[in-house]
């Protein structure tokens, strides 16, 4: 019965993909301009394939299939960082960077919030003081809610103090950087966990953390800032690991299985790259076909 249920989910997902392909084919034959010309059609197809692949893995996980996920040292180090801070009697600091939740940086910000929920629970578990600073006003309520939830679900509601725990600083980049720097040093934090969309402020946070000898865990998917984090932090999430961290923090099997979808995407990218190189040697440019836009007439 369970098997049937999973199959139905998968069948439905694949059916949607087939349906879209069939509808696209028919409309192409009828000369209907179904898709916009501003993006290559291949992009749309790849997006659909990835979403459906991720969905299939999630349904399989629901039925009990296990998908092993490789260990991310930075994620495991979070608990150590919180515990160490408690031993030293120093607070834990977390921030998300200057990218906002209302821009293309939203996914990274949400990944940061996922890590915060994990950190907040650990702080509740060990009785650590948490300071979450942010430079994005639209995320104040969410951050307060996550920190509150973390302390409440660990049975330590008395530790939650919104004025102390959640600090909105400013929405100006370097004013935010200087305020975070001041917070790190004045509060003498024991752990500095920074995960999210970081810009030029990243190294300022890292060096300030270094000045107070804080245990530092950093992560971002913004390529230009990754080197600073890798260089200075004790542990770092590199690139898409921050998205996996959110899933790991949830501890939910289905959520973890979705990461498999990412791997399918990587495999697809590698195949396309290798194929592209091989075809290029034969004088054929694969990229031209991939950049094909839906244009009728």
């Amino acid at each position, binding site marked *: 019965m369970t098997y049937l249920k999973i199959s139905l989910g998968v069948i439905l997902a694949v059916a949607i993909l087939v349906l879209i392909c069939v509808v696209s084919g028919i409309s192409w034959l009828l000369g209907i301009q179904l898709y916009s010309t*501003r993006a290559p059609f291949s992009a749309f197809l790849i997006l659909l394939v990835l979403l459906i692949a991720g969905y299939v893995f999630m349904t399989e996980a629901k039925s009990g299939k296990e998908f092993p996920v490789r260990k991310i040292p930075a994620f495991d180090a979070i608990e150590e960082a919180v515990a160490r801070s408690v031993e030293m009697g120093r607070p834990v600091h977390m921030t998300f960077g200057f990218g906002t939740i209302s*821009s*293309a940086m939203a996914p990274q910000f949400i990944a940061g919030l996922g890590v915060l929920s994990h950190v907040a629970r650990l702080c509740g578990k060990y009785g650590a003081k948490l300071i979450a600073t942010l430079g994005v006003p639209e995320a104040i309520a969410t951050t307060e809610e996550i920190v509150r939830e973390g302390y409440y679900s660990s049975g330590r509601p008395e530790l939650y103090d919104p004025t102390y725990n959640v600090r909105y600083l400013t929405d100006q980049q370097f004013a935010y950087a200087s305020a975070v720097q001041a917070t790190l040093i004045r509060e003498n934090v024991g752990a500095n966990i920074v995960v999210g969309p970081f810009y030029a402020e990243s190294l300022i946070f890292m060096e300030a953390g270094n000045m107070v000898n804080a245990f530092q865990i950093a992560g971002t998917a913004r*390529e*230009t800032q990754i080197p600073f984090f890798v260089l200075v932090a004790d542990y770092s999430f590199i690139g898409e690991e921050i998205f996996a961290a959110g899933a790991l923090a949830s501890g939910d099997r289905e959520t973890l299985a979705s990461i498999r979808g990412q791997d399918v995407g990587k495999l697809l990218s590698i195949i396309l790259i290798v194929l592209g190189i091989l075809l290029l040697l034969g004088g054929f440019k694969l990229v031209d076909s991939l950049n094909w836009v839906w244009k009728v007439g």
Partner: protein
Amino acid sequence: MSGLSSLEKVLGSKELLYTLLLLSVILPILHPLGIPVEISQRTRDVYGYIEKNLRSGCRVYIEVYYEVAARGELEPNLIALTKHLFDKGCKIVYGSLGAFGVVAFSLFKSMASDLFEGKEYGRDYVYLGYIAGGEAASASLAKSIKGTISVDNYGNRLEDLPLMREVDKATDFDLVIIVSSGTDVFSYYVRQWHTPYGVPLLFAALSVIAPSIEPFVGAKQAVGMLVGQRSAAEYEVLVGRLGLGIASMDAQSTSHMLIVAFIIIGNAIYWGKRVSSKKGGSK
């Protein structure tokens, strides 16, 4: 060995490094060394592209997207590019997708007032001001500027400006230049201006973000890229208007050399200690 340790302690103190660094930046600005600037192929390519492809009367759109903090690196690039474009007789429409661009533009205009002498506002150049909405605004501008906003930065109606009667959409421009301190803006223009309309893009970026937009240049989605102060200095030499870019090159050179010296000494001490501790161990 203790000598090496104490030397390491002295060099490792932030105060010494910071003081020397401060001096190495300030002194060359006060007393320029006058080291000649070699012009990289990449800057020559940008200059060559404008020389070859733009003629008098060409229309160029320039995105001014940097905050005052990034002024030092980007403003000299903007000034040199503007000088080159005006020399070629191009007409320029400036716009900003970030609110801070308005201040950056007014500072740029006051720094380069000589370039705007003899140029008439509305006919030779226009500043659209801050256009809210990020990527969606960028897409909308590419489709129709007048359909996105109705007035420029100074409250003039766009229909009343002669230049704006000539241009409205992405394809009306011969070149689009993005001078930005943020990585995202470059991708907005690639996605919304270049991919759908095929408009040539030219980038001027901070050195620190240049690597992340390099793929666009590699994939020929941009015709070229000017990177930070070094490119600004080179471009100033090419267009013959020496300014802040070249003035700060000496400071950049001395400060970089200081850092190199520290790295080398740091390594020498590290290896000195390692070798001597090994010797100590074998005894």
